[in-house]
């Protein structure tokens, strides 16, 4: 919903929240449901309401648990049946600089202040460790915003007695903890409050009246950021950009002005804005974000622009370059198809509101932010949090390359009349093994973002995955695939739960970049072999339809399963038995 995309009008959202919620619920979108516990060191009422709107907008329907007012520590550390019965999927700890037990005074010695830092950290670490041990779910923790006054003036920052100094030290300690703990994320209210304006953010009017630790008008910004972390954890980040060219990646119209005349580079002020924007975009490649072009231009002109001496972005940086006179939505849809992505996984960047409108009308759920003027592009895109990072896997840095390899495969395929011959010539080699620690980041990422080739769309936290990895009653498979064009990395995952002689497949998914390569058959071969080794007689599979996984509706059927049941929602249950009669069927992939 446009209203909930950055840049938004906080007051409008606050003033019409009930109506917005109704609209979101009536939108016909499908939602995943998540239990979210909020433990607050100050009032959380409106924070919860705003989080709900932003989460619904991301396709997540939250159920909330609200800790008693300012009982965040007690509720986290002591036995808490209400929270246990709630089964949180994620916990958000909303504390602020008002929750620091004791600040240094001018009389305190260095040792005393060191021990204050330690004491505060012990309090928080105890809480985080208790939550991780008891609830095994991700935790989001606010860092500290800067204080609303500086007793020592500028020296407050550098002197150990200053609050600015003290809070900065605590923040650094929080980050150290984050770096050594997975499933733990910082909500950077220090940055968000600075961005909003600290003076307004910390207007104490709202604290004195209603114990809100921030200005009520700033709450949508806070809630938006928390919701972004949550949607990222649950695999709802965007995956790529689709760019217009003229007046988006450079100034001017290349077809009219010629390549020498476009604004790009250090010479002109406007050229600098586009250059810096290009650098910002290019840096996204390190995060595995896919870059594409959708421009109304002659192809030659588009390439000439990207070959401009000062162009930071080169044609090779893009996976798909659609420069033609087709309508933008048509090209957009082609790009998504070629990448095997849903249109809503892509962010459309175009300076022209009419083009943005066409694309978002055609593909609801696709983001096409209002980017403003060229000097505002970076700020407006960045604050949307499209690619909020919660987990980095080794594949991220290589993702663009992998898609380019895929493009070469497609080209190569064109030279074969017979698909089987093509598959043979790909010289595919797979490694299919139980989960290993080195791949857990990638497995986690894949599980939480795969939507299309995903039979149950069950999501797992990292702690759950680690528990499953060392649990004898599970069969886990993680499949990697290489071929003559490159290494695809981990592309398929199966989790089976064994009970007596039956294996129940809780999860089966595959990355769409390896569709139609017979990898699913190789996985089935491996699964049946593991089952046979363990004396399992029967394998049961489940298909739960979502808005996105129609492609695997009959997957188990194609793998030789028999349908046992189908309910009115289209959920189906499948069985394969006896396992002992299974014949291996993969002919094209060499499995190590």
């Amino acid at each position, binding site marked *: 919903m446009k209203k909930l995309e950055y840049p938004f009008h906080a007051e409008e959202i*606050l*003033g019409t*929240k009930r*109506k917005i919620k109704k609209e979101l619920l009536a939108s016909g979108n499908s939602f995943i449901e998540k239990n979210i516990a909020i433990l607050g060191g100050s009032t959380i009422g409106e924070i919860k309401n705003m989080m709900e709107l932003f989460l619904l907008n991301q396709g997540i329907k939250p159920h909330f648990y609200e800790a008693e007012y300012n009982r965040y520590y007690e509720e986290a550390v002591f036995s808490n049946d209400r929270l246990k019965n709630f089964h949180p999927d994620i916990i958000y700890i909303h504390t602020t600089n008002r929750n620091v037990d004791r600040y240094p005074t001018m009389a305190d010695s260095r040792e005393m202040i060191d021990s204050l830092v330690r004491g505060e950290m012990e309090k928080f670490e105890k809480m985080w460790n208790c939550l991780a041990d008891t609830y095994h779910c991700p935790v989001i923790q606010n860092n500290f915003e800067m204080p609303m006054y500086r007793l020592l003036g500028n020296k407050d920052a550098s002197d150990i007695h200053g609050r600015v100094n003290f809070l900065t030290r605590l923040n650094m300690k929080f980050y150290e903890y984050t770096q050594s703990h997975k499933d733990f994320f910082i909500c950077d209210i220090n940055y968000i409050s600075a961005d909003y304006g600290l003076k307004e953010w910390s207007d104490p009017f709202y604290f004195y*009246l*209603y114990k809100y630790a921030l200005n*009520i008008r700033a709450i949508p910004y806070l809630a938006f950021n928390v919701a972004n972390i949550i949607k990222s954890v649950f695999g709802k980040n965007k995956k790529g950009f689709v760019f217009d060219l003229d007046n988006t990646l450079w100034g001017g119209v290349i077809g009219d002005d010629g390549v020498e005349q476009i604004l790009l580079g250090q010479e002109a002020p406007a050229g600098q804005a586009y250059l810096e924007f290009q650098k910002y975009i290019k840096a996204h490649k390190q995060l595995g974000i896919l870059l594409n072009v959708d421009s109304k231009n002659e192809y030659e002109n588009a390439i000439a622009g990207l070959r401009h001496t000062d162009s930071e972005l080169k044609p090779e940086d893009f996976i798909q370059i659609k420069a033609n006179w087709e309508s933008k939505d048509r090209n957009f849809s082609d790009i998504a198809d070629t990448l095997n992505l849903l249109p809503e996984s892509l962010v459309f960047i175009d300076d022209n509101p009419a083009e943005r409108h066409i694309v978002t009308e055609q593909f609801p759920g696709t983001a096409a932010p209002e980017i403003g003027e060229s000097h505002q592009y970076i700020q407006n895109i960045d604050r949307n949090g499209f690619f909020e990072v919660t987990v980095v896997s080794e594949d991220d840095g290589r993702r663009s390359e992998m898609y380019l390899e895929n493009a070469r495969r497609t080209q190569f395929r064109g030279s074969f009349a017979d698909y089987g011959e093509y598959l043979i010539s790909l010289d595919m080699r797979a490694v299919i093994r139980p989960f290993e620690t080195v791949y857990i980041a990638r497995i986690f990422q894949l599980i939480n973002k795969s939507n299309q080739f995903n039979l149950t769309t069950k999501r797992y936290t990292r702690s759950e995955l680690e528990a499953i990895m060392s649990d004898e009653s599970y069969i886990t498979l993680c499949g990697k695939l290489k071929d003559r064009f490159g290494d695809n990395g981990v592309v398929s995952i199966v989790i089976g739960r064994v009970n007596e002689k039956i294996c129940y497949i809780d999860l089966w998914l595959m990355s769409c970049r390896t569709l139609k390569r017979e990898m699913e058959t190789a996985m089935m071969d491996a699964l049946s072999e593991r089952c046979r080794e363990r004396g399992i007689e029967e394998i049961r599979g489940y298909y739960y339809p979502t808005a996105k996984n129609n492609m695997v509706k009959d997957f188990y059927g194609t793998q030789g399963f028999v349908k046992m049941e189908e309910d009115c929602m289209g959920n189906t249950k499948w069985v394969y038995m006896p396992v002992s009669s299974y014949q291996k069927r993969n002919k094209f992939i060499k499995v190590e």
Partner: protein
Amino acid sequence: MKMKREEVLKILTSIFQNNFDDEKIKLTDATSSVDIEDWDSLEQINLVVAVQDAFKIKFNIEEVNSMNNVGEMVDFIMKKVKG
């Protein structure tokens, strides 16, 4: 030109209708949190923020704390809106 009491009430009514997403809300001086189901102490702050924005005024803590019904809110607004 000083704003009339009825005009203030009319603007307040539309703020309340938006906030509670209920077009049936009709405000009188006597309307208080007892009359509107979702109007609790926390909702009050949202109303205050919306009212301040609409009339371009600022309340102080004491004023917010002492508003017990719509009539009192109107009194404060009329006192503050520049004539």
